[in-house]
């Protein structure tokens, strides 16, 4: 009722004879409504989540992460953590698209690679600083991602998965065409020196990005927007029948997802100092799928935990393998890691369909209750 009153006020205060002010007022009124939708009672939601067991578990984990890593000051640990955090942003972005809105796409590496390339191009061509470039690349990934999103709107189920897979693989091969002269884009030396000279600084910057991204995605998950997404996932016809424009909301979901995937791509390009066609590789679009399945499909925090677990598990297993095999094979660590990853992948998908974190957290909660004597 109050919205109608507001609109009436606007219409009487600024009649048609004053179109510019009318226009701006409509934007203000519209965006106020949007903001209200996005953050309903965020404060109390956050408090109740944090004091619950699950929230406490995750917050403890984060605190351990933030305190222990700088104390160890080992570049290998920094590297692993940074990669884990970048992949967790990617996994959470895929989860918004697939776990929450039900649009399962196997082509997320397209957004990732486009983000990385645009970021590198921005820095090289416009000489902007890294922060602006990251945001601009995320925004442009959204715009270019619309090319992938709009045809995907009418596909469902396996056709959507195949179509997005075809898109991302096409991009992988197109970026290798000799005729198009697409080269690897290298970031300028000054930026690389600034970035790599202090791994702790990089760690904290990426950590801040990860926390902000995941918090935004959690807010979306818990808001009306998230509910609409879940409705589209569960029963698209019923949602459409309720009067919600599913096309618009599917597009919004694609846009949010590609924004964060582009963000992750830019951070990845920044971390490695180059943007190559390898960013479009097939396995990069399956990493978020695996991490999300590992952590539980429809929960953002689950996909983050899945990403961390996987990266660390692969690192631990490859170190374990390196102890067994002689030194000459140390150069093949990457391949060992990938074979370990693939074996774990098959086993875990086969045996734990709904993510291994729910049972772990439930059992940990039971243990905690027993310890507290409840």
């Amino acid at each position, binding site marked *: 009722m109050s919205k109608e009153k507001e609109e009436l006020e606007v219409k009487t205060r600024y009649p048609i004879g004053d179109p510019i002010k009318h226009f701006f007022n409509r934007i203000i009124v519209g965006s106020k409504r949007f903001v209200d939708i996005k953050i309903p009672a965020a404060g109390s939601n956050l408090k109740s989540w944090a004091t619950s067991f699950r929230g406490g578990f995750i917050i403890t984990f984060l605190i351990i992460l933030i305190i222990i890593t700088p104390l160890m000051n080992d570049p290998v640990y920094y590297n692993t953590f940074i990669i884990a955090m970048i992949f967790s942003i990617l996994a959470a972005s895929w989860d918004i698209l697939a776990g929450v809105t039900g649009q399962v796409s196997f082509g997320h590496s397209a957004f990732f690679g486009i983000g990385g390339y645009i970021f590198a191009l921005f820095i090289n061509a416009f000489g902007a600083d890294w922060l602006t470039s990251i945001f601009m690349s995320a925004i442009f990934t959204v715009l270019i991602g619309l090319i992938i999103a709009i045809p995907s709107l009418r596909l469902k189920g396996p056709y959507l998965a195949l179509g997005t897979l075809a898109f991302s693989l096409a991009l992988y091969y197109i970026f290798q065409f000799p*005729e198009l002269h697409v080269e690897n884009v290298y970031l300028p030396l000054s930026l690389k020196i600034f970035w790599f000279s202090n791994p702790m600084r990089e760690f904290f910057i990426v950590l801040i990005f990860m926390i902000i991204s995941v918090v935004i995605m959690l807010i979306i998950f818990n808001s009306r927007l998230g509910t609409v997404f879940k409705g589209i996932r569960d029963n698209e016809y019923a949602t459409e029948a309720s009067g919600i424009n599913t096309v618009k909301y599917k597009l919004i979901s694609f846009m949010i997802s590609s924004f964060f995937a582009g963000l992750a791509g830019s951070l990845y390009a920044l971390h490695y100092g180059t943007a190559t066609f390898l960013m479009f590789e097939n396995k990069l679009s399956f990493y978020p799928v695996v991490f999300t399945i590992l952590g539980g499909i429809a929960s953002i925090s689950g996909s983050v935990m899945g990403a961390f677990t996987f990266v660390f598990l692969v690192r631990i297993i490859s170190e374990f393998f390196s102890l067994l095999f002689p030194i000459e094979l140390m150069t093949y660590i990457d391949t060992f890691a990938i074979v370990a990853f693939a074996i774990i992948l098959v086993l875990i998908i086969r045996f734990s369909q709904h993510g291994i974190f729910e049972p772990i957290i439930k059992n940990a909660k039971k243990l905690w209750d027993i310890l507290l004597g409840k």
Partner: protein
Amino acid sequence: MDTKNKAILGIIIIIAIAIPAILIPIIFPAILYPNLYILLNMVGVDVLKNLIETLIFGSSLGTILALISIGYSLVYGVGKIINLSHGMFYFLTGYLIFSFSVYGPVPYVYAIILSLVIITVIGASTYRFLIKPFHGNEIMVMIITFSLGFLIQQIILLVELLIPGYTFLSLDQFIGGSIDIFGAQFSFYRIFIMITSISIIALLLIFIKKTRYGKAIRAVSQDRDAAKLMGINYDGVLLFTVTLSAFLAGFAAFLYVPEEPLSMGTGWNFLLLSMSVVILGGMGSIPGTLIGAFILSYSKYLCQYFISESLAGVFHFFIIIVMLVIRPYGILGKKEKI
């Protein structure tokens, strides 16, 4: 007209139309305007040779693609399974044949038989252990078959790295010799490929059309629950279909690998090629698959010779994307309730 006759007629029509359609614009102008061809040859465009090569290479690739894609399409039509490790079955068979015959003391014929048996067993165990638990959920089946394909590729890479000097070289073509048509080599091996694969496809079609088990397969692809009510063992039919598709992929590998050596991207390449054939021709429809295979291979080679070589490598992606947007059930597919 029933399926088998329609399909065989389709093949004959396609080849019959393609040959004159390509040769007539070559032969008549070449007779009437020989200067044109001399001019084009000076410019560097070997039009005649390219067209003949399109016909030859396109036909052989078309029959091989038909062999691989029929397995893929059958598996989808019967059980709605999208098997993303199909390309890896091809790759693995080629590798096994190579390792048994070159690095092992096994004679070539026994190597072929052994690897075909192995790939059949792998196909059966893929169904039994990986696909069957996830049966209702298409996305999970895609994920786990993709992981299996990825695993196979990484294990092969690892084996190559660990054992020094172990790289895939090539397989011998056991029928040598070729004839020369206007500058394009038409090897007898390709004729052998085409004859063998067409006969295998014809045998397969006879099996599906005439035998009782083939009728069971058709029944399950039409209506799963009604087939169960009729007493058909749905699980057994699916197992047979997946195993058969693995065998067909292995057989295609045995035929085509001597002609085109394996590389690391071959597995995924053949998977996507067969996927685009099936999407083009219609998921679950065998005549459509045959037509799609030939259309795709001819247009791929035409693109390679006349437009750009790199574009030919990604041509099938654009076919997938375009077909999914305008007509996802393919040319001859049935309009599913999506």
